[in-house]
């Protein structure tokens, strides 16, 4: 007989579920969720008992841009419509310094947002002090979010988390933006953070399902002390989506964890509300799997598909090249640039400068 590994006992562990459908899910919808649909989804999530719901453009405050696409409505319009309808849920927003600003955070607060995820690349936490401090001054539930966490080692990530805690973050997230991490990677990073952060500072995990590891990784994070888990109902999010929240909740229930969320109601939201909204089935497919395999930012997926169609280079090749060039979240412009450079090398695109008989360099 083989010996079986003893599962850690997580019974009675309190876990806060943070839904991403109306923020990360905006990426999967090319930012085209109408205000009324946002209200419908948020109301259903609130009714199911989800305590924290993120609502903004996929790239967060300041996200409306040529770089990240223009949503159907402003962040203010979405927040003002959703926040007053919430019976128990708190509404959170995303703020990426360099894109979003304190002015936009104030405006989001004025429209009813009461929690904020302040996100930086996993090595650049020191671009977030003014935003985290401002959020705390407003009295918001303030989360620091270390994106592309696979690109920093556990000790390095822990130092970055400690910086965010020092600025005032009450929760520090390990953020697997590329859906690249395996459970051991998650465990090591959460454990390193737990070792340096104050006991009252919470740890969160934000997964992407590109390798199908969203739930397993979230459980691994909880085993090492994480208490907030981001996911999205039916997985509506960038790449192959976020950790599918209803499936994760079922696992939590089976393991005896306490979330305060009603499983059957959440399953109904997934099936009756979210799935019919999808423009494409959000799942592990060739391109989203490439993201997870190559460690590329999940949001790049649809941009790469568009550039592929425009310049005649395959999306997978573009994504692999972006991974090789170590492009990070926010550098969506480099997708078009990379596709154009590849197309030129293959004679598929003429250089506008040589085309008219001139050179600049």
């Amino acid at each position, binding site marked *: 007989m083989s010996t079986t590994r003893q599962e850690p006992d997580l019974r009675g562990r309190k876990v806060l579920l943070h839904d991403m459908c109306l923020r990360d899910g905006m990426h999967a919808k090319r930012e085209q969720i109408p205000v009324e649909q946002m209200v419908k989804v948020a109301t259903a999530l609130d009714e199911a008992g989800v305590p924290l719901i993120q609502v903004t453009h996929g790239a967060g405050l300041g996200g409306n841009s040529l770089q990240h696409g223009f949503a159907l409505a402003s962040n203010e319009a979405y927040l003002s419509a959703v926040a007053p309808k919430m019976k128990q849920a708190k509404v959170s927003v995303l703020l990426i310094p360099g894109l979003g600003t*304190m002015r936009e955070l104030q405006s989001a607060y004025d429209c009813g947002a009461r929690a904020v995820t302040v996100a930086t690349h996993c*090595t650049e936490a020191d*671009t977030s002090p003014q935003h985290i401090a401002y959020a705390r001054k407003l009295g918001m539930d303030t989360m620091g979010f270390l994106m592309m966490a696979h690109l920093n080692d556990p000790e390095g990530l822990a130092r970055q988390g400690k910086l965010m805690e020092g600025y005032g973050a009450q929760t520090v997230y390990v953020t697997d933006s590329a859906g690249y991490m395996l459970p051991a990677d998650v465990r090591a990073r959460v454990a390193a953070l737990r070792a340096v952060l104050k006991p009252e500072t919470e740890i969160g995990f934000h997964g992407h399902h590109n390798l199908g590891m969203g739930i397993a990784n979230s459980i691994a994070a909880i085993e090492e002390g994480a208490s907030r888990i981001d996911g999205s109902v039916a997985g509506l999010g960038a790449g192959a989506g976020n950790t599918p929240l209803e499936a994760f909740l079922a696992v939590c229930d089976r393991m005896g964890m306490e979330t305060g969320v009603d499983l059957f109601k959440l399953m109904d939201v997934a099936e009756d509300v979210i799935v019919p909204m999808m423009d494409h089935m959000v799942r592990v497919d060739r391109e989203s799997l490439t993201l997870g395999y190559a460690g590329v930012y999940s949001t790049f997926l649809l941009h790469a598909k568009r550039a592929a169609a425009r310049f005649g280079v395959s999306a997978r090749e573009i994504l692999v090249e972006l991974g090789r060039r170590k492009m*990070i979240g926010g550098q969506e412009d480099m997708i078009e640039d990379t596709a154009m450079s590849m197309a030129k090398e293959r004679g598929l695109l003429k250089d506008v*400068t040589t085309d008219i008989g001139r050179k600049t360099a």
Partner: protein
Amino acid sequence: MMKKIKCALIGSGNIGTDLIYKLQRSAVLEPVWMVGIDAASEGLARARDLGLKTTAEGVDGLLPHVQADGIQIAFDATSAYVHAENSRKLNALGVLMVDLTPAAIGPLCVPPVNLRAHAEQLAMNVNMISCAGQATIPIVHAVSRVQPVDYAEIVASLASKSIGPGTRANLDEFTYTTSDALVRVGGAKKGKALAIINPAEPPMIMRNTINCLTEGEPQQGRIVDSVLAMIEEVRKYVPGYELVNGPSFDGQRVSVFMKVAGLGDYLPTYAGNLDIMTAAACRTAEMFAEEILAGKIKLQATEAA
């Protein structure tokens, strides 16, 4: 030997240090003082090694020497928060201020777009906006001088190692000042600036993507000519300013993808953001210096504002 205009540098970080090298090569400028706030700082030690006088007492440590040493131009590379006070004190002594912080209390200057106008109006404080502004506004202007631009949006990707603690801690000021300048200097009706700090090793060379939405269909041929001509203007003072892709046209969107390599004076060549800022500041000061040396303008002490 031709007479040179004596300069003081305030702030001994990346920008101030890189400026020493640029000014020492100038035919009309001479760096004399470096002002810091930490006697043990590496920047002040390096400035001393390069032959500058130094003080760790901030601008107040410089003021008693302004007249004796004939300082006529100062470069401020501290932060938006202390710049106003620095500028007031030095302007009162007749020293022209070239502001490399995002304070933007003086007129905004992008050399190939509007430097001549500032020199003629004898502004006593000119602001250099930001590295991203210097790298992108010339292109926005190159489009807007052909036809109206409803919206300009730029993305600056910067190597993590090239961004000092001041910029990091005050990223919003960088965003506000650059966005504003896309309109005021670039000529767009609306502007938005995005900054990305990338930690890749080896460090990535500064990249800038400029997107303009034109009013009506873009006049492709004229825009290409205008952009290429503008790139040549910038290359006169930043030789590593290079077109990678574009101008490409998609409906009303005009996209230009630039790369900026530095000269490698202080930081390695990937830090084109440092060079484009210091080179623009140096060129701005040279224009004023040439006018002063030719007797065309005379700097006046200004009343404290």
